[in-house]
């Protein structure tokens, strides 16, 4: 199986804070990888570097062998990376369908002259995009109204739309930042199925998630971060029992002992220094 | 139905396109009043063409060419037979052809940019001296006063820039007087210290302000405050009692002005001023006399033509003889502007503009 994303020795810091501190990992075709780690470990920052929203202080990022380090987000997206955001970034006043169409911007098949003169090309590309938009909404199992502004949807529905928008880009790499946040158990089960369906499209799926149930069940490989460093990388089975991970992140399953967490917090406290 | 063939009965409608809104609204008002005064006088005498009364149709141009065109068209549609308006040259220019296409004569009381005669339209008559004429007067006076150096300040409107440019041209051609400063200010502001400062450093014998009294007053005051002791002269747009009030009578004392003779400076015009002031409880402003004259001239031309038909009235205007304006006997040159602008020089004495020099 071929490597899609290859991140090598990534650094980024803000003022004193080393958000990402020498992170290296790679993601392959038809693979679901989860990135987990305490709050503030640097997961989202890593995503932001890969997608060009942050310019890494140092390190290299390769997409299918092509160096995309430091390109502007649009170019990286064009190169074949698509993502969702930790706190939704939809186009609130546009309809659900238009939001998904955004994902199809790059294969437009029309220029402004087609638009002005309503050429056959234009008509075709428009109906094609609409059909695609509906297809992807079905694909993510979106059940709400599609012709109304997304701001009128509930949180969970908006998450679905955001994923549909990302998928509509049809890229080899999909980055999902906490797609499960704000979903209840049954909805997370659907999400889990969805992740697998996405993988079966032949893409690499990298997701940040805090719900261990979901992570352990869905991921083929788990990367654990702390203080911006990778502290573990392995199969769910391995990670579950990895003492560092339990210490820094998981805590003992069930009965939470107040002493433990404050210890955990104490650790992530260092990450600030 | 907007037929513009003049009615043979009923009131004779006179168009006046002047600024009633925007920063030039004050002048529009004084012109409107001047015209109204003439209309009332003539009507009181029983009108013209055997008892037909005159009626003003004043339209706002806001000194904006676009609006002026609308206003002019409105006037045409209202069946006005003659126009006595025109203040901002740039707003008057595009209206020329509109009136002309309907053969409506225009007697332009205020706008005086050289561009107007240059448009060479048969219907346009300027009864206000042009910028060229005024600057000639200014230069003549500067020489008389034995000035060696001057500063020319305008407010970037065509009326005022016209005068400075012409004056500058003449002075350079002549060579005996140096133009140390030739600059513009933005109308409608209050602090002119920067231009004042420029002048102070250059320290010319005379400053010639070629725009209106609002800013003129401020500039005079700020010049004196800054300690400028040279002479100050203003153009006719600034000849207004308010100039002295704004500048402060002390600072305004001794300021010269190039201007057509104002009623105040004309023997026998005292009661005119009185009537005007009584009628509108405000003193006449710049161009109220010209507007008054414009209406009277219009009436005269129509009477001579014995009809309101445009073509005939225009001819009547071309051939008119011996008609007395405030500025003296009317004589058009080939450009249909005044043969002599009739400019004189006034000076502020005891808080009043009085005649200084008739430049004969």
């Amino acid at each position, binding site marked *: 199986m071929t490597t899609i994303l290859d991140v090598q020795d990534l650094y980024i810091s803000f003022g004193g804070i080393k958000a990402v501190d020498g992170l290296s990992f790679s993601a392959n075709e038809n693979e679901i990888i989860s990135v987990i780690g305490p709050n503030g470990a640097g997961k989202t920052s890593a995503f932001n570097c890969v997608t060009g929203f942050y310019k890494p202080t140092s390190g290299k990022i390769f997409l299918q062998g092509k160096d995309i380090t430091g390109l502007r987000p649009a170019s990286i997206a064009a190169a074949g990376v698509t993502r969702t955001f930790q706190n939704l970034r939809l186009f*609130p006043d546009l309809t659900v369908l238009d939001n998904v169409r955004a994902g199809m*911007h790059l294969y437009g098949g029309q220029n*402004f002259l087609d638009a002005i003169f309503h050429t056959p090309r234009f008509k075709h590309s428009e109906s094609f995009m609409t059909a695609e938009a509906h297809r992807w909404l079905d694909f993510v199992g979106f059940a709400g109204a599609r012709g*109304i502004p997304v701001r009128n949807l509930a949180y969970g529905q908006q998450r679905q739309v955001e994923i549909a928008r990302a998928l509509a880009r049809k890229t080899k790499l999909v980055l999902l930042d906490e797609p499960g946040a704000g979903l209840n158990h049954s909805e997370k089960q659907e999400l889990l199925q969805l992740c697998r369906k996405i993988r079966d499209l032949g893409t690499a799926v990298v997701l940040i998630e805090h719900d261990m149930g979901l992570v352990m069940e869905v991921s083929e490989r788990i990367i654990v971060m702390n203080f911006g460093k990778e502290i573990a990388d392995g199969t769910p089975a391995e990670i579950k029992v990895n003492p560092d991970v339990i210490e820094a992140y998981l805590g003992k399953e069930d009965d939470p002992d107040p002493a433990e967490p404050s210890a955990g917090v104490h650790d992530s406290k260092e990450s600030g220094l | 139905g907007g037929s513009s063939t003049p009615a043979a009965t009923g009131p004779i409608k006179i168009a006046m396109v002047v600024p009633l809104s925007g920063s030039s609204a004050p002048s529009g008002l004084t012109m409107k009043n001047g015209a109204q005064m003439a209309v009332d006088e003539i009507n009181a005498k029983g009108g013209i063409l055997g008892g037909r009364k005159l009626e003003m149709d004043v339209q706002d141009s806001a000194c904006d060419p*676009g609006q002026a065109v*609308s206003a002019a068209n409105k006037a045409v549609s209202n069946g006005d037979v003659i126009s006595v308006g025109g203040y901002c040259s740039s707003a008057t220019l595009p209206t020329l052809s509109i009136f002309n296409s309907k053969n409506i004569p225009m007697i332009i009381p205020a706008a005086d940019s050289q561009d107007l005669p240059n448009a060479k339209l048969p219907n346009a008559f300027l009864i206000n001296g042009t910028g060229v004429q005024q600057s000639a007067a200014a230069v003549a006076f500067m020489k008389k006063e034995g000035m060696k150096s001057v500063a020319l300040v305008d407010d970037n409107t*065509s009326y005022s820039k016209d005068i400075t440019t012409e004056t500058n041209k003449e002075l350079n051609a002549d060579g005996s007087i140096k133009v140390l400063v030739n600059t513009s200010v933005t109308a409608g502001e209050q602090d002119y210290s920067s231009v004042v400062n420029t002048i102070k450093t250059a320290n010319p014998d005379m400053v010639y302000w070629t725009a209106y009294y609002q800013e003129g007053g401020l500039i005079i005051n700020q010049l004196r405050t800054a300690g400028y002791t040279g002479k100050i002269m203003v153009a006719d747009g600034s000849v207004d009692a308010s100039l002295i009030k704004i500048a402060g009578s002390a600072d305004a004392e001794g300021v010269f002005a190039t201007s057509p003779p104002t009623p105040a400076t004309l023997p026998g015009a005292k009661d005119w001023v009185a009537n005007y002031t009584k009628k509108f409880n405000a003193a006449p402003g710049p161009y109220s006399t010209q507007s008054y004259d414009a209406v009277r001239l219009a009436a005269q031309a129509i009477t001579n033509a014995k009809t309101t038909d445009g073509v005939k009235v225009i001819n009547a205007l071309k051939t008119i003889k011996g008609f007395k304006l405030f500025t003296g006997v009317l004589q058009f040159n080939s450009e249909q502007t005044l043969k002599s602008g009739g400019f004189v020089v006034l000076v502020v004495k005891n808080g009043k503009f009085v005649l200084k020099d008739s430049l004969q």
Partner: protein
Amino acid sequence: MAKSKSKSERVNDNAELSDNVDASMAPRLIGKPQSRLSALFESKRLGWAALAIALILPFIIATPYTLNVMTNAAIFVLLAAGLNIVVGYCGLLDLGYVAFMAVGAYTAGIIAKSFELPLFFTIPAVLIMTVLAGLIIGTPTLRLRSDYLAIVTLGFGEMIRLTANNLAITGGTGGIYGIPGLQVFGIELQDPVRFYYVCVAIVSVFVLAAARLGKSRLGRAWRFVREDEDAAEAMGIHTYKVKLMAYIFGAFWGGMGGVLFAAHLSAVSPHSFVFLQSALVLMAVVLGGMGNMRGVVLGAIAITLLPEMLRNFSDYRYLVFGILLVVVMVFRPQGLWPSRAYEPERGFEGTKRSRARAAAKGQTS
């Protein structure tokens, strides 16, 4: 019904106060038009109906004045349509829009006058100049957020006016006059009625074009940028390019407006391009309903007609005008005819079945 609707929104807005301030400049309405009335409003025919009215009007009221006002309205519609591309679609607040109009008017005027060309032949030059102007104004503002944009555009507007005021080729304060009128192949089009028809023809073409652009891929890209630049970038939309496109189109529309304006007055002078003009065009857009071309057309007509209708108030004209503006906006906060984010559902309702179908599709795709 429309009225009661906008009320209920206000309630909701007060409720969701947050949506207000971080709301983009875009109007937003919830739900879909239902009444037959609004269905009619959305229908395509309406545009043709409006055009038809515009075409027969001269036969009903053809005084020079009404013709002149209608011509102004037409030109103003063109300007508003152009500004709507920049402000309504792309959400770039432009307070100096007349700059483009000025560029168009002066380019046309100068060339036509100095080469004795009919104005139509100057259009290529106008195209070039306005595109340049668009780039010049656009480029330094790409990184700016809306209100910094506002002042920069305002600045450019003033700079262009003042420059025209101070330069010799632009005729200085007097401007340029005696510009040769419109005429094609010797047919003189300067006569008011003909000129009006020419304007209506040109304007409607440009309005249609702008409206279609708004509904195209580029138009959507503009909206995406308006709504959320980061998200747009993440979708591979090069926001700078897209913004520049908005400026360029806006500039050209404005330039064309300038050409017609110059032809209409046969004179161009700096006084026509003061800040107030920009403000008026912006009003037309907002009053009509940002982003909705039909609304914008309506707004432009309203903004031209109002001051004319108020002429008889002479001195109180702008007092009344100002009050009316406030009243209208208070009662129609989204504009007279807001743009609706609404599309037909195409029968894809989120039913169990459609989910099943979706799943099926998922496998097959």
